[in-house]
Each structure stands twice: as C-alpha cells, then as structure tokens.
C-alpha cells in the first residue's frame, strides 16, 4: 500500500490497543449535565433560558450573534438548575448551565434533511450552524465557518480527516467503523455546503478496517471520492499536515485551508452532521475515548455533552491504579486536568488517565537537531526555545514563532528533556500580546 505523509513528525507508541477493539457504548443519561457557555473556538454564548426553565432534549439553550460561534443545545430533558461558574477543561472556570434530568425524555427534533444535493449551500451552512456543529477533532472550530469559502475563493477539494494520530484515542476509529453510513450523509451535506468537487478521506494505515470499509462505501457517493491511506505518524491529523500529505499544498502562515482551496473536517463532525440530517438531533452527544493504564475498563463511549468526568470514571469501573495525571484529549496536545468534576465539552475527544509519568533528566541543549527534524512546520524549536528563555521575543517573532501549532513533537523527541513546546507557547503568547498592543512594549 502506498502511504502518503508529510515531512517531519514523530513515531511514538500509539497505545491504541486499550480501546481499539471496543465497540462504542452509549452512556446512559446522567442525572445532570454541566454545559459551559464556551465550547468552541470563538465568541462565548449567552443563555436563552433562565434558572428554573424546563428544557427539552435538542432544544437550543444558548447562542450569540457572532459569526465565529456555534449555539448550544440541551442534551437532556429537564430543568435548568443554575447558571454559574463551573470547572472548564480548558479555561479553568467558566459560566455554565446546569441541567437536571427530569426523566421525561421529551425531545425537540428538527425535520430530517432530504434531497441534500439540491439544497442551496447557504441554506446548508445556516442549517449546520443551527445544529451547533463544531470540529470534533479537538479544536472545536465552528463547522459552518469552515465550509464558508470567502467571496472569490473556490473550494476544489474536501478532505475528511480520519487520521486520528493522537496516542490512546480511538473514538474516531470506532465511529468510522460503526457509524459509517451517517458519516457519508454528513459528508454529502458538508461537501454541498462548501461546493467542493471531490473528496479525499485520509486514514492512517493502522486503521486498516476503516480504510477497507470506506474503500467500498465511497463508490456510492454522488461525487468523486477516494480513501488515501496515510503513514501512521504524529501529527498526521493536523489539518495543515493532512493537506500536505494528500495534496502537497501548504496553508499560508495565519491562513486557513480555505486559502488553498481546501476544506478539512473530522470524521466525527461528519457523523454529527449526518446524524442531524437523519434523526434531526443537533450536536448534543459525541463519542469519546476513556483510556490509560489507570482505568479498570477503558471504553469508547457515546456521551451527552456536559457529562461530568467522575460519572464516566464510575462507568468505566474506577481505577486499577490511582492516576497521577488526567488529560483531556490525547497525551500530545491534551490538557492536564485539575479535577474529575470537569464536564465533557464539544472539543473533548477523550480522557487519558496516566500513572506512569515519564522521568527524564534535563540537560542543556546539545543542538542534536531532533526537534528540527520532528517539527512539521519547518521551525527551529531549539532556537525559538532559547529566544523564549532569554525573552528575545522580537527575534522569536522574526524566526516564525507564530507558525508553531504546539503539536509537541519537539518536546517529545528532546533528549535533554527541554520543554520546548512550553517555552514556545510562552513566546507565542507574548508576541501576540505585543502585536495586539501595536508596539514593541
């Protein structure tokens, strides 16, 4: 099999064996869900309900006027118990709606979407936004923005991202195997919405079952489509690297895939869109992976948004080892959590529970170039790290620090165990702060 890939990157153990063969289980409705008012990249939402209101499953409960935003829907039928600050997996604390399950199971469903190919793209984009769709790969960028080509720009290619390169995570893989027909419907909606002429489905070659499945299914699509097997390498699922691997095009600095005529969406996003087209349910549930050596029974779960992590841990049978680190997302780009009270948000691809943390002695940089070879953005992480350490932020900016997407490959390979990604993150924040101020203060 010929495998496409991008230059750079790392080969780390995938740790996917914990959950790769475990079918998706549907998590029962919890007694309450906590829904932060910011679950996507963009503007925070304002609640459309108030404390004490009754809401139905699928009812829109928060929205905002801004273009880069996506509304929020209730994953449960029940009562709004409060709107107050609560744990947020990325932001520390953030205002959140708490909804208590009343057991009635009342639902508000949209009409199924038929005759997709004859719909107006603008209508479909609005329909996608109303469904609260965001990228479910992790970044949670609003999907309707991704499929809206700017005036004068032509989208020629749609890429469905089934790479799932983060270690431990298998939710996309399971969705590809078990929810493939809904993915194809969502794919048709997304393709029609952005106006692409052809589709590539990028899947890493360690997910052979998914590759074979989609190889057969793509023939029935109303547009040319092909599965592209990818080399198993991190960060193959990064949007820019996926476009390089499949099309050889490079997204310009600060740009979007739209700038090179491409739209990339995650397979799970396509599933969520397809599910809304079939069943009329907006984005109120997603599939996540719970994994790591600490869990008694690691699982792939379809969970309502807002489910609190401690409930999920109970479902997985608790610990076999006490975790020392809890990560939302994969271990490469995921965020370490302070509490088991965090809720599942739209961008949650999973939780990883680790007890064997790496122990690696720190040494001075020996300029071995491993970080440079690993960097998929052709940066010199060691140089940027030193600039950051010496607070030479203008030099860091001149050496393209803002091109860094914080994939973590440099820190991973560093034999001196220098936290390059962290240093670069600090430099990026400072460079952005200075550019906002418009001066070099």
């Amino acid at each position, binding site marked *: 099999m010929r495998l*496409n890939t991008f230059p750079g990157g*790392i080969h*780390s153990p995938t740790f996917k064996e914990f959950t790769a063969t475990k079918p998706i289980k549907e998590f029962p409705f919890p007694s309450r869900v906590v829904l932060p008012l910011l679950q996507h990249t963009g503007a925070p939402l304002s609640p459309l309900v108030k404390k004490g209101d009754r809401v139905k499953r699928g009812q829109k409960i928060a929205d905002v006027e801004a273009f880069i935003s996506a509304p929020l829907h209730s994953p449960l039928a029940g009562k709004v118990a409060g709107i107050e600050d609560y744990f947020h997996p990325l932001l520390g604390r953030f205002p959140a709606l708490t909804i208590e399950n009343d057991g009635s199971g009342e639902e508000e469903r949209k009409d199924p979407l038929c005759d997709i190919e004859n719909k107006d793209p603008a209508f479909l984009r609005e329909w996608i936004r109303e469904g609260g769709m965001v990228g479910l790969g992790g970044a949670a960028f609003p999907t309707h923005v991704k499929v809206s080509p700017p005036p004068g720009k032509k989208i020629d290619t749609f890429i469905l991202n089934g790479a799932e390169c983060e270690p431990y995570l298998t939710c996309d893989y399971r969705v590809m195997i078990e929810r493939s027909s809904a993915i194809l419907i969502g794919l048709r909606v997304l393709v029609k919405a952005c106006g692409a002429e*052809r589709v590539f489905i990028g899947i890493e070659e360690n997910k052979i079952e998914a590759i074979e499945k989609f190889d057969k299914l793509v023939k029935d699509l109303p547009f*040319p*489509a*092909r599965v592209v097997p990818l080399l198993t390498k991190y960060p193959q699922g990064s949007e*820019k690297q996926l476009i390089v691997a*499949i*099309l*050889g*095009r*490079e*997204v*310009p*600095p600060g*740009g979007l895939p739209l700038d090179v005529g491409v739209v990339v969406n995650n397979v799970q996003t396509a599933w969520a869109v397809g599910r809304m087209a079939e069943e009329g349910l907006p984005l109120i549930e997603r599939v996540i992976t719970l994994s790591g050596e600490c869990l008694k029974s690691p699982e792939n779960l379809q969970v309502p948004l807002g489910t609190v992590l*401690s*409930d999920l*841990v109970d479902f997985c049978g608790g610990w076999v080892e006490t*975790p*020392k*680190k*809890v990560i939302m997302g994969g*271990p*490469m780009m995921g965020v*370490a*959590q*302070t*509490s*088991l009270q965090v809720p599942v948000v739209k961008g949650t691809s999973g939780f990883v529970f*680790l007890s064997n*943390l790496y122990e690696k002695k720190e*040494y*001075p940089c*020996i*300029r*071995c*170039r*491993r970080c*440079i070879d690993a960097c998929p*953005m*052709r940066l*010199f992480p*060691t140089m940027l790290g030193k600039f950051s350490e010496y607070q030479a932020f203008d030099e860091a900016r001149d*050496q*393209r620090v803002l*091109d860094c997407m914080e994939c*973590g*490959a440099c*820190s*991973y*390979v*560093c*034999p*001196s*165990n220098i*936290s390059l*990604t*962290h240093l670069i993150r600090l430099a990026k924040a400072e460079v952005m702060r200075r550019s906002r101020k418009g001066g070099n203060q």
Partner: protein
Amino acid sequence: MNEELKLVITSSPHLRDEITVPWIMRQVVLALLPATIWGIYFFGVSSTLLTILLSVGSTMGFEALNCKIFKKPLSITDGSAVITGLLLGLSLPPSAPFWLPLVGGGAAIFLGKEMFGGLGQNIFNPALVGRAVLLVSWPKAMSTWWVSAPFGFSGFSGGGAASTFSGVEMVTTPTPLSIAQMYGYSSLHQADPRILWRLFVGQVPGSIGEISALLLLIGFVYLWWRGVVHWDIPLSYFVGLSCVAILGGQSALFHILSGGAIMGACFMATDYVTSPISSKGRYIFGLGAGAITGVIRLLGAYPEGVTFGILTMNALVPFLDYLLPPRFGVKNQMVKEEKI
C-alpha cells in the same frame, strides 16, 4: 468517584521519547570502539592504551575539577567528557609522552568547553581545541610516530630512528601525508602501490584511532542507523576535500583515506554542539571544513589540516544557524497533486 486525587499538572505534550543525552553519548563511544581496538592492536597495548586512558581520564578529571571550582553540579555523567577524551586520545600519535594527553585534555575541557559555559555552549569542538593546542605547542611530539618495525615506511627520511619501548623494537616513521607533502603523492604511490587499500583497512601508521578508514566508517554507519548522526556533513566534507585535492593534482581518494579526514568528517565535524543546526548551513560547513583541510594539506606548513579546517568552520556556525528552510506555506508549492 469523588475521592480527592493528587494530580500532576504540566503543559503538553505528556509523553517523552526514551532517547536521552547519555544514551546518545554511549552510542558515539560504541561507534568509536572498533577503531580504538584496532589502534591498540596495531600499535601495541603499551604504546596506546595508556595514552587513551590518560586522555579520557584527564577530560573527565578536569571537568569534575571545573565543576568543583565553579560550584556547578557534577556534569561528567552526561558522557560528553568521555567522548572528548576519547576523540583526543585517538587523535594522538602512538607512544606519545604521558603529559601530552593530560595537557590536551585540560585545554579541551577548560579552553574548549567550560570557558564557554559547558555542554552545549562551546563554539569550538573541545577535542580539536585540545589537539590544536598540542599541535602548535609541541609540533615535534605531535608528529613523531613510533611504530613497531614492520609497519613503518622505509626509504623516506624521517624513518630510521629506533628505540625500544617495553621490550618492543620501535622506529619512527613519517605518515603518508608528510611523505606526500615532501616528495609528492606519486613517489608515495611508487613506494607502495597498494597504499590506498592499506589506508582503507588500517595498515598504515597514523594517529592511534585514525588509521582504519573501514572501521571508522563502520562506526559511522552504526551511528547513522541508530539515528544519532546524519550523513550530510561527512559527505560535503569529502566533496570539499576532494575538490581541493583534484585541483591540486592529487588523488582525492588518498586524501580522504589518509590522516584524520575520516575521523574528522564522521566524528568531529558532526559534533552536535559545534555544527550548524540548519540543513543548508551543514552542507556549507562540511564543504568549507573539507576544502580548508585540503588547502592546508597542499599549501600549509602542517602536513595535516583536519583540525584547523573544522575549527575554522566551527567559528562560522552561529552565522550558518540562521539559514532557515523556506517558511511553511509561503511558496504555495503544488507539487504532488493526488488524483482520484
């Protein structure tokens, strides 16, 4: 599940590769072992082992001393001092006086490394700094080659003096490079038509660890296979050296195989700390170091130019580091368009 957990909070990534600095240093030492063992066997234990041990001992000792004086944590466990000492020892002539490796080790560690701030901070390859100090201070001691009788070159001046070390009959002999410098390469080839083969396998006297091109290359291939080194610098070094040799009307292969060229290109010019991090810079670095080596060999007062060739290019590394590859996404290359 509401029990309190004590959770570690760090920023991503939360995984690390297993490769560490001491692991890398061990690989380099391993890669040098075949050439080291051959050197000891070829010249005899009595005239080599002590030199190597004193060299490694002095670099480690001086580094420990430096840590003590400047109240730094003991850094010899990172393994870099061992490599410096080994490289220095292997670049000394057999039967060198005992104080030569000691002085060289001190110069390498203090002048070459610690004065710049220790591991990772030095501009010049420490082993070569040590060697350069010895070369300019004691040129005679550094270019007198005592070898056991059958391996020497007869018929050229420089050969002839005889002595006895630990009961073994020894003679001094000129190296092929000094013969080539004094009499021309053709006379050397006439004296020994199989000179290139003997240089390749390591049957021609030279510095302790530099005689067998074959074993050094095996070591280098091992390092490359282990992902420790890249072939770009050695290759461009040989290209640079060959160009100068050919321009000077001499055999390129002879210049690559003789003296410290292989050792220099594969183990000294590729030193992480003192070679450029940028890919373009590395080619320029190698070409320059090889070319300067050739120019010194052909035109300079010294028969050998590896040391000063590499040291000169070391000085340019801070500049070469800035030759970054093209920025991602700036030239929108549409190279390998996939078809459905």
